[in-house]
């Protein structure tokens, strides 16, 4: 029996372990422990000096799950240097004396069926292809539903009347999602919770502040790495709009690119790598839809986003909108983030009153 683990990101460990437990029913799936400051400390200690922060986070969780006895780690790649993480991480872990294997499902932001088949065979040669395909689709649907509900939560959580009502309901939903049997069951559960969420009482004033969050994908989706930015915004009663989620990255991104390019053609002509071009278009969208402010977050040294930053500030200047740039690092302090956020929030309030 092999023990499989994967680095976690936000709440997406639920669909991921759901899929893995159905594809490899005889193996054990290790749920990575929640990211803490200790995780980053370990990750930073063994990482190269100026690699981007997601590398440190994922390395930290990998070491922690290896301590729990995992022997196979699963990593996914992106369009920038994220796709190259796995090989170096494997070497670092080997040098540290761990015996493990890293399976990199996506490199360079692209992959194909044959490659995945070969990789999965390495984990368990007798895995069922048909089941895998079926459960992949179920999982994709689950991710889609989760993202829809997350979007609804983001728009409303700042205005909840009973404190914590959204979060507790979401937790309830995630537990039920991890025991889904088939498509129909999934759909019914989703509908049930969507209704429940809509029934939760909120109080939304008309002159509420609206903020759009754009930036690098890992930092946006893993709340620990952005110091619970969304939570602190919600505390200030702000409506949040966020574009990046797993469903977008896996399915919509490829389809949307042409549209985005046309929409923001004054600002960029070529794909700038990872989500940089997307973020430029989103910045324009947020400005045109009259959002009060934009927050751009990224991990430090994220090359594509650094390239996009001058363009984003140019757009914001043209539309006279404030932008707050955050660059998160393992050494960033929570207080520093909060102070800057508070100042930003005060500034938005004053602009609104004018």
């Amino acid at each position, binding site marked *: 029996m092999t023990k499989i683990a994967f680095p976690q990101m936000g709440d997406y460990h639920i669909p991921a372990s759901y899929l893995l437990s159905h594809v490899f029913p005889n193996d054990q799936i290790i749920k990575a422990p929640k990211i803490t400051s200790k995780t980053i400390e370990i990750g930073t200690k063994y990482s190269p000096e100026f*690699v981007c922060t997601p590398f440190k986070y994922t390395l930290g969780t990998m070491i922690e799950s290896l301590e729990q006895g995992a022997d196979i780690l699963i990593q996914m790649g992106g369009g920038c240097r994220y*796709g190259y993480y796995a090989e170096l991480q494997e070497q670092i872990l080997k040098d540290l004396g761990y015996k493990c294997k890293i399976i990199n499902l996506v490199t360079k932001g692209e992959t194909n069926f044959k490659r995945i088949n070969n990789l999965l065979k390495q984990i368990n040669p007798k895995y069922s292809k048909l089941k895998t395909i079926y459960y992949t689709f179920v999982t994709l649907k689950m991710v889609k539903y989760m993202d829809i509900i997350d979007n609804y939560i983001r728009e409303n959580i700042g205005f909840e009347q009973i404190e914590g009502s959204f979060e507790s309901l979401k937790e309830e939903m995630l537990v039920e999602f991890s025991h889904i049997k088939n498509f129909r069951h999934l759909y019914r559960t989703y509908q049930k919770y969507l209704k429940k969420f809509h029934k939760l009482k909120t109080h939304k004033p008309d002159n509420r502040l609206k903020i759009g969050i754009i930036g690098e994908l890992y930092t946006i989706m893993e709340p620990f790495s952005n110091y619970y930015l969304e939570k602190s915004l919600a505390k200030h009663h702000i409506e949040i709009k966020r574009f990046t989620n797993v469903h977008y990255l896996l399915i919509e991104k490829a389809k949307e690119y042409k549209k985005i390019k046309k929409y923001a053609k004054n600002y960029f002509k*070529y*794909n700038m*790598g990872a989500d940089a071009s997307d973020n430029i278009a989103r910045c324009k969208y947020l400005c045109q839809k009259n959002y009060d402010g934009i927050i751009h977050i990224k991990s430090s*040294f994220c*090359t594509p986003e*650094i390239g*996009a930053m001058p363009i984003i500030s140019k757009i914001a200047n043209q539309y006279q909108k404030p932008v707050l740039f955050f660059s998160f690092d393992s050494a960033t302090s929570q207080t520093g983030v909060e102070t800057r956020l508070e100042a930003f929030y005060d500034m938005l309030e004053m602009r609104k009153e004018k």
Partner: protein
Amino acid sequence: MNTVGIPRSLFYYYYGNIWEDFFTALKINYIVSPITNKEIMDRGIKTSNSEMCLSLKNYLGHVDYLKDKCDYILVPRISNFKNSNQTCTNFWAAYDIVKNIFNINILHYNIDLEKGQTLKKGLYKIGKALNKSSPQIKRAYKYAIIKHKKQVKKNHQINQNKLKVKKTKILIVGHPYNVYDELIGKDIIKYLLKNNIEIIYSDKFDSKITNPLSKEISKDLYFKYSKDNLGAIAYTRKKINGIIFISSFPCGPDSLANELAMRKIKKPYLNLVIDDNSSFTGLETRLESFLDMLGGKLND
């Protein structure tokens, strides 16, 4: 008469010869920005975002220097060379960054072999934009390419010959736009030459030989220029005494690929990361002790 400005940074170190010959053959005026000096670097630091890598800052400095001295500035975009040979995302974005930061006329072309955008097509596009006829462009392109190929072959030969010399040999691993730049890597090279070291450059090997060899060190690597570097290490590792890695802070591909190489090769190495505050005195101390160490090893 139109004048084209060529920034002496990043792309120049890969395509400079071709551009110069191409424009000369077409009888187009061009100016190349001077060798990097303090003023240019400061201009770059001022115009760029503080987190950009030193090489990109340097590039923007050169563009800034040229902006009111010519009618067009040549800023290409290089994306990939097929078969998982990507470039760094700064190379993808350079055109858009320059276009948004500066208010200038840009001559540009795109190299994206996966989509069939080749250098030939790019140079044709530039020739057309400068009102030259197809036969003229064809002649100029042929002239430039043949000359470039000869030069490259010569470089390969020189590098190969250097490997046979009986002196302390050090492989310099770094991108040409860092290694040959006056403010970034030149001082290091000068210091080594002064100390009677034979320098072998990682980018001056035939990439047809080195690219497949890079698999010995890294299987998944998909950055073209890092592949050249690691391939050179794999190719020369039995013939050299030490390796010096030169990279600019914070270079994306280098941070991973060089780290992997350092972990896998069993050779003395020195990793120099240059940023906009680094002074040569600090580097000199490190270089000195590295050479001392190599010397000690040689005497054994």
